[in-house]
């Protein structure tokens, strides 16, 4: 009967994790920024603009990671009907959309010096833009119904359909010739960039991940509260019905 199992246990767990997530975020951001801005070298080709990488790449990774997390929680919500799963999906989507936007914006900022233009219509960039629309579509559908339950289910189906886009983004650089550079960190043969860049990159990636957990918990707490408010509303309606205590119309038969 997990449908109306009270989420108190989850909240207690969240209370314990949240301070850790917050402090880890701070620690990783500070150390990551130190390495990224001060102790790592400028690129021999790209100069100082290479430092955009320490935001851009982790943000792009998080954009993909969040969508995967969204799809997994939507699948869990549809198959096992666990209310926390659908809640997690709803809480993840806006965070993922923000990371996607961040990746798009930092990518554009980087593109201007590197490629001489803010935007090109190549496979990688376009598929990320589509990812952004999918996030927006998920959120829009989620909120489009008077009955929230219906919005959650419909948007979960959409999120699963849209998951097709994630491998397309990942492999777009391999399948099509594009301006965007192919994977150099995460690939079979091991990372192909120097460790002085790798360390800050990973520190920032960890920082983003911890930040994600932190914000996710806050947002889930908010969602749970919203549900409680809803339940109170319902009770108000029901109590009003009870107070009138109207007699049922005379029995048939």
């Amino acid at each position: 009967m997990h449908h109306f199992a009270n989420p108190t246990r989850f909240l207690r767990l969240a209370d314990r994790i949240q301070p850790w997530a917050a402090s880890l975020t701070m620690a990783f951001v500070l150390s990551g920024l130190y390495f990224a801005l001060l102790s790592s070298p400028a690129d021999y080709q790209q100069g100082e603009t290479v430092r955009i990488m320490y935001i851009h790449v982790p943000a792009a990774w998080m954009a993909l990671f969040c969508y995967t997390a969204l799809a997994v929680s939507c699948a869990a919500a549809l198959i096992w009907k666990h209310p926390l799963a659908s809640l997690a999906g709803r809480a993840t989507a806006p965070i993922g959309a923000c990371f996607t936007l961040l990746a798009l914006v930092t990518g554009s900022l980087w593109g201007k010096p590197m490629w001489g233009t803010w935007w090109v219509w190549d496979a990688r960039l376009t598929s990320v833009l589509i990812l952004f629309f999918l996030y927006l579509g998920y959120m829009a559908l989620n909120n489009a119904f008077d009955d929230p339950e219906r919005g959650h289910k419909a948007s979960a189906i959409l999120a699963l359909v849209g998951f097709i886009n994630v491998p397309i983004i990942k492999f777009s650089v391999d399948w099509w010739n594009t301006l965007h550079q192919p994977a150099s960190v995460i690939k079979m043969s091991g990372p192909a960039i120097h460790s002085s860049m790798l360390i800050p990159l990973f520190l920032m990636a960890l920082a983003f991940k911890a930040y994600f957990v932190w914000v996710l918990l806050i947002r889930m707490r908010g969602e749970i509260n919203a549900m409680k408010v809803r339940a109170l509303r319902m009770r108000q309606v029901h109590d009003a019905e009870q107070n009138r205590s109207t007699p049922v119309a005379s029995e048939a038969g």
Partner: protein
Amino acid sequence: MNSFVQIVRRDLNLSFRQGMDSAMVVMFFVIAVVLFPFGVGPEPNILMRIAAGVIWVAALLASMLSLERLFQADFEDGSLEILVLQPVPLEIAVIAKITAHWITTGLPLIIAAPILAVLLNMNADGFGMLIAALALGTPSLSLIGAIGAALILGARRGGVLLSLLILPLYIPVLIFGVSAVDATLAGLSVKPHLLILSALLLSSLALCPWVGAAALRQAMRS
């Protein structure tokens, strides 16, 4: 199979008696295309250059607009609820409705397209390929769009919402549909593009009825 035929026949029947359905989709298609010479100016070589793209984009928008009501009317008058409760697999019902929809809207688009291509100064060599690409592409559009049409049932602002949900999913069809035509005009091989269009069609044929049926069941839950 018998119920498949029953449902297709009834939907065609409804569409013909209500009249204008097909006509209106075609006219939207034509008007949307005709807006472009007004928008981008009448220079023939610019128009020629963008003809295939504009026709495909207009076809996407027309297909999307007409799909909005694929399940909507049945949802509103209670038919959908009854359909879900018939001893007929819902997937069959969904694919029957999509078939009827494509016959009444997709087919007329394909017929109208060459005329618009003439209006936009497209090179006559491309006409055949335009038709072929649309014939392979529009069924995919109907199939993909059916998912969106099922998801938005009962939502506020269905029309705009639908566009947000399915236009991103239409993009692969658009890309390969246009490149098939462009490849013909440039004298290159069209085989890879047509193969991908067919693959898109087959995979949406395999996937969409199931997802659409699941979405419809979901819509009935409330």
